[in-house]
């Protein structure tokens, strides 16, 4: 079993790469030769296949965690990253196109993306397939500056630029894994984080910038642990200036700085627990702004996996991850964001959490009655 499942895992990843290209956009002229229209013409098959992939990824996640001691983590991460680097990035979200459009406003047109929307550059070929062209830049200036590297190295070739953006996000994913290992000093955390199906999907496939934001947040915590307050301040600000959400870590951050200045001991497990909870709270409140997007889970997953000893948090994080990845299915199936899709999405997000807590409650009751039985016998 141990020897068999890893080749099957890699083979599944390869199949997922092929599957991802069935979702290429009709208007994406650069991929016109490989456009099949499968995802829109055969919605039922596409959705079922996607759900099977999600289930498989979670099975592999379980197996990897179970046999982690006999697995070469570095090879596993590099191979997973390398294979998924080849995926079509807009199978689940079109954000990568928005990142490129924003970057183009600044680095190609040399205009301020906070004032000008991509749609104002009439005739630009990316207007046909980019979704948020009628919005000014949504992300912080640090993110836009960082994307300049990928954009400029794209040499005006869209496909090259697209994969440069994917590579950039993968590099930050690898950097975050490094920081997780440095901070937690626990291989279980590294396995939990690096191979989490949600992290993999949203980072290696969809290339969301949330991982970049969390990289800087973790880097800031890393320097806090090392008591280098100035550097940690710079990096937390950098993190905030990527996607703003980590501003909710600031109170935790100030608390640690005060403790450090007073030379009081810091319970880092508690710090990460509170950080996970505060980011989870913001994640759940994100529906007030727009809706709960699956990639927002990266905000708290990073902290949850740093403290795997907090079992309930870990189970909750994984249950939410599972639900979030399944929540893509209603749109994939119906092709619309309206109708029953929003409700189905919410049900799918929270159903695994509900199942988990029912299971835990039953399990606890069972253990408790077993304990009572043991007491009675003795």
């Amino acid at each position: 079993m141990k020897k068999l499942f890893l080749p099957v895992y890699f083979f599944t990843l390869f199949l997922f790469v092929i599957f991802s290209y069935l979702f290429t956009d009709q208007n994406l002229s650069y991929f016109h030769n490989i456009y099949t229209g499968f995802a829109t013409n055969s919605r039922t098959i596409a959705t079922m296949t996607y759900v099977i992939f999600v289930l498989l990824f979670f099975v592999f996640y379980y197996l990897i965690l179970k046999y982690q001691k006999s697995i070469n983590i570095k090879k596993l991460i590099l191979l997973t990253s390398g294979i998924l680097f080849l995926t079509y990035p807009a199978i689940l979200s079109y954000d990568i196109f928005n990142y490129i459009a924003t970057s183009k406003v600044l680095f190609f047109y040399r205009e301020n993306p906070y004032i000008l929307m991509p749609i104002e550059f009439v005739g630009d070929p990316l207007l046909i397939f980019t979704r948020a062209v009628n919005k000014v830049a949504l992300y912080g200036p640090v993110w836009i500056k960082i994307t300049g590297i990928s954009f400029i190295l794209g040499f005006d070739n869209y496909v090259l630029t697209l994969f440069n953006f994917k590579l950039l996000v993968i590099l930050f994913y690898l950097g975050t894994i490094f920081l997780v290992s440095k901070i937690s000093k626990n291989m279980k955390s590294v396995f939990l984080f690096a191979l989490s199906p949600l992290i993999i999907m949203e980072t290696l496939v969809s290339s969301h910038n949330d991982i970049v934001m969390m990289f800087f947040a973790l880097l800031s915590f890393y320097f806090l642990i090392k008591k280098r307050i100035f550097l940690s301040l710079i990096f937390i600000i950098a993190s905030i200036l990527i996607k703003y959400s980590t501003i909710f870590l600031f109170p935790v951050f100030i608390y640690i700085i005060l403790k450090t200045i007073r030379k009081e001991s810091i319970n880092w497990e508690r710090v990460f627990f509170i950080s996970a909870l505060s980011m989870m709270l913001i994640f759940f409140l994100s529906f007030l702004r727009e809706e709960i997007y699956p990639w927002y889970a990266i905000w708290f997953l990073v902290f949850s996996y740093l403290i795997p000893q907090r079992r309930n948090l870990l189970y909750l994080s994984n249950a939410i991850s599972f639900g979030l990845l399944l929540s893509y299915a209603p749109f994939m199936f119906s092709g619309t964001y309206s109708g029953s899709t929003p409700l189905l999405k919410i049900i799918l997000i929270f159903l695994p959490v509900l199942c988990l807590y029912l299971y835990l409650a039953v399990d606890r009751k069972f253990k408790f009655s077993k304990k009572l039985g043991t007491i009675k016998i003795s």
Partner: protein
Amino acid sequence: MKNLRWVLFLFLLVNLSSVRVFAQSDYVLPYPSQMPGNKFYTINQVIEKISYFWYFGNFGKTYYYQKLSDKYLVEAKTLFEYKQYLLAYKSLLKSNRYFEKIYPYLLSAKKEGKDIFEKQKILKEASRKHIEELEKLKNNIPDKFEWTPEKDSPTNLNLWTTIDTSIAIRSKTL
């Protein structure tokens, strides 16, 4: 035949008695901001100067000058209504100065290969709106005005000439 005459008469009556309104611009001017004398007025001006750097790029600069030109036109209009002719006159000159800077930036954008058709359309709309407001203003203010401050020498303001110049500046873009 008699009916036809009545129809013709009514047609002429309606057309001659009504005020001829040329196609008005849909362009919307901003609300009046703080007026001179307000304690936030100077702060606003400082922000304006700093935001020059925020509006970089040729399209950015077009936005910047368009915004300021609109702002000072509204300011001038409000001040004229309150008969603050000297301040109004200065605001109008400012609006003119900013307006004149818009088109060269659009031309630079064109040289960079940017499609300026939509922006040019907006500029024309803005020009029409400005002209519309300036014509209305001209009807409500004196031709010339001597502004005499309490402890200063008087200033002669050629208000109509200034408004005509302002209209001419905007007409160039039409």
